[in-house]
């Protein structure tokens, strides 16, 4: 205790002593050392790595898996404010970390600033777009994956009405919604889609109560399949769907196990895999800047099939999904991307 007190106040009061202390600590400061020359790092967004959604997918399927498989330590940081995002990215770059993965579109400004200042560091941004040679933009064609689950929703529905619960009202989520609507219409053009967003701030990603309420109202209005693209809010959607005896569709990771028996499928979006591949590419020396687009063809997005939903998926449904997937890959089905013109034809 005494030591702590002394060093603190010498730091505060005696500027002259600072340099001495500084040089001592500089050597003592622990820096995470990785095997070989690759020192990967990841900066989550302010929701944190245990957000039960997007960040957690990167953490569990990307960071942890990479560490287990390769034994290379990945240094992580969860910023608490806007200034810290840029600060931590730059600091990782300054300490020789590369690649540095930034999770989520909110990091775009920070990545742009850090990438300009450290042109030799490899930055990867997931779900965002930064135009710089040393930035890898990992983006997903969520509209294509949503199209596939839309086909399944239309075929599973008996009432003629299906639902969509979005998280935050942003173009990205409208892209999910628009793809879903197109998939539903592709299977049965007489279907009715009820779509609602949970909110207009990032809080909408973590509001299961509201998600449950929206689901209830959609079910009361006739929907018997509800697709949630709402992060942690989806938990409430799946629970309510199970309680009310209707089907739900998960998102981002395979969430079929969450309510076995009422989860029709999940629109998986392999964000964790994308992070993993970015790390692995850096180890192999094949990492490159530019765009990495993950659509149905790359299996970056799709409809999850496993033992939890096997009983719910008929062979007709499987055939229809396979046909739609093949159609998207060969170009005979073009799924309109909401974000290309900020509008949806349906």
């Amino acid at each position: 205790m005494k030591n702590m007190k002394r060093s603190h106040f010498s730091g505060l009061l005696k500027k002259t002593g600072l340099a001495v202390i500084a040089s001592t600590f500089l050597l003592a400061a622990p820096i995470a050392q990785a095997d070989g020359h690759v020192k990967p790092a990841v900066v989550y967004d302010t929701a944190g790595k245990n957000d039960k959604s997007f960040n957690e997918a990167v953490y569990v399927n990307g960071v942890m898996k990479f560490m287990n498989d390769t034994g290379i330590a990945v240094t992580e940081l969860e910023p608490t404010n806007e200034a810290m995002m840029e600060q931590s990215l730059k600091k990782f770059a300054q300490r020789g970390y590369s690649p540095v993965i930034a999770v989520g579109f909110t990091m775009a400004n920070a990545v742009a600033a850090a990438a300009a200042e450290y042109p030799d560091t490899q930055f990867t941004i997931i779900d965002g777009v930064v135009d710089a040679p040393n930035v890898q933009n990992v983006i997903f064609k969520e509209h294509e994956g949503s199209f596939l689950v839309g086909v399944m929703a239309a075929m599973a529905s008996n009432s003629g009405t299906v639902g969509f619960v979005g998280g935050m009202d942003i173009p990205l989520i409208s892209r999910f919604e628009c793809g879903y609507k197109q998939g539903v219409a592709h299977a049965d053009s007489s279907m009715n889609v009820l779509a609602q967003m949970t909110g207009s701030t990032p809080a909408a990603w973590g509001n299961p109560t509201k998600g449950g309420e929206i689901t209830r109202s959609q079910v009361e209005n006739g929907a018997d399949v509800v697709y949630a693209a709402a992060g942690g809010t989806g938990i409430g959607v799946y629970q309510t769907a199970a309680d009310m005896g209707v089907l739900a569709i998960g998102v981002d990771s395979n969430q079929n196990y969450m309510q076995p028996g009422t989860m029709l499928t999940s629109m998986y979006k392999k964000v964790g895999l994308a992070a993993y591949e970015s790390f692995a590419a850096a180890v192999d020396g094949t990492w490159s800047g530019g765009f990495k687009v993950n659509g149905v063809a790359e299996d970056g997005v799709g409809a999850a099939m496993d033992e939890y939903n096997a009983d719910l998926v008929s062979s007709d449904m499987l055939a229809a999904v396979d046909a739609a997937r093949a159609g998207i890959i060969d170009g005979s089905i073009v799924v309109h991307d909401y974000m290309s013109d900020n509008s949806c034809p349906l």
Partner: protein
Amino acid sequence: MTRERRLSWINGLLLPFLNVLTAFIATAIVFILIGVDPIEATKILIYGALGYDEGLGYTLYYATNFVFTGLAVAVAFHAGLFNIGGEGQAYVGGLGTAIVALYLNPALSAWIVIPLAISGGLLFGALWAIIPAYLQAYRGSHIVITTIMFNFLASALMVYVLVNVLREVGEMSPESADFIKASWLPFVHDVFASFGYKIAKSPLNLSILVALFFSGLVWFFLWHTRWGYAIRAVGKSNDAAVYGGINPKKIIIVTMCISGALAGLVGINELMGVQHRLFLNFNYGYGFGGIAVALMGRNHPVGILIAAFLFGILYQGGAELDFELQNVSRDIVVVMQGLVILFCGGLEYLYRPILIRFLAPIEATE
């Protein structure tokens, strides 16, 4: 030394010092419990916050925000008003700044744009405080309750404005376009560079001078003007102030406007200084932090500068801890701040009876 003088030393210096020390001891215990060497952690914290010029830049940048909100709380406190609404006033003040910095003619000189944008922050911060002030002065609604509620209203208002009005088409994040260049406050490292000194880049910008200027202004205003005297009189004794010909209702309105205006300056640092755009929650935590800063600084500008600096150290040093030690999560920073607030705010007078007993006992004859 007379007893009066000794008492003021105890209240002004010794107590805050002991409180902060206790908070650090408690933090050290928490560190030991989670398996972190507290000496090591202290070294990282101090070095990260003060040891190199980039870290010091971040510390001062965070401190600037706390100076604004600390002054805001202190001014209100001198009139006996507990302004919990710094968070909301800072938020809405940022909107005032942003409106000027977004829509003014980009061809105008920075010498015109910057003062106008600062005035925008002052004005909107004051406007956000005037309604709770009116309700307190003329309707008897308690200022603590109304200002807290106004924080929520501010949050809702800003979400609406950012999502529906200021967000550009196709943009994901609820944030405005970039401010016009003329409204950008120069970074300190750029200013130094123009004089030929090279220092590391940090978000520290010239709003720290604005903070120092307003600290001086608040000191002069409170202790050397009529209005300052009236504010302190109302705070000390409402009835005596009325007897002295002061209208407390008017004073409440004026004080809260000044308080809100000061809180509204957070946007100068965050928006004009660093991010150059308006976005959600840029004010996060600074309004409430300001309460602790004012308490620790004994509502005096000098004390507030010191306390704000300490909070800057905690913010930047804490971020550094999170960065350096993988088993320390970002939540430890919140714990540290919580302990400082607990011991400096909640348990402010913990040591007072003991200190008075030993250092300044009541004497029969002086």
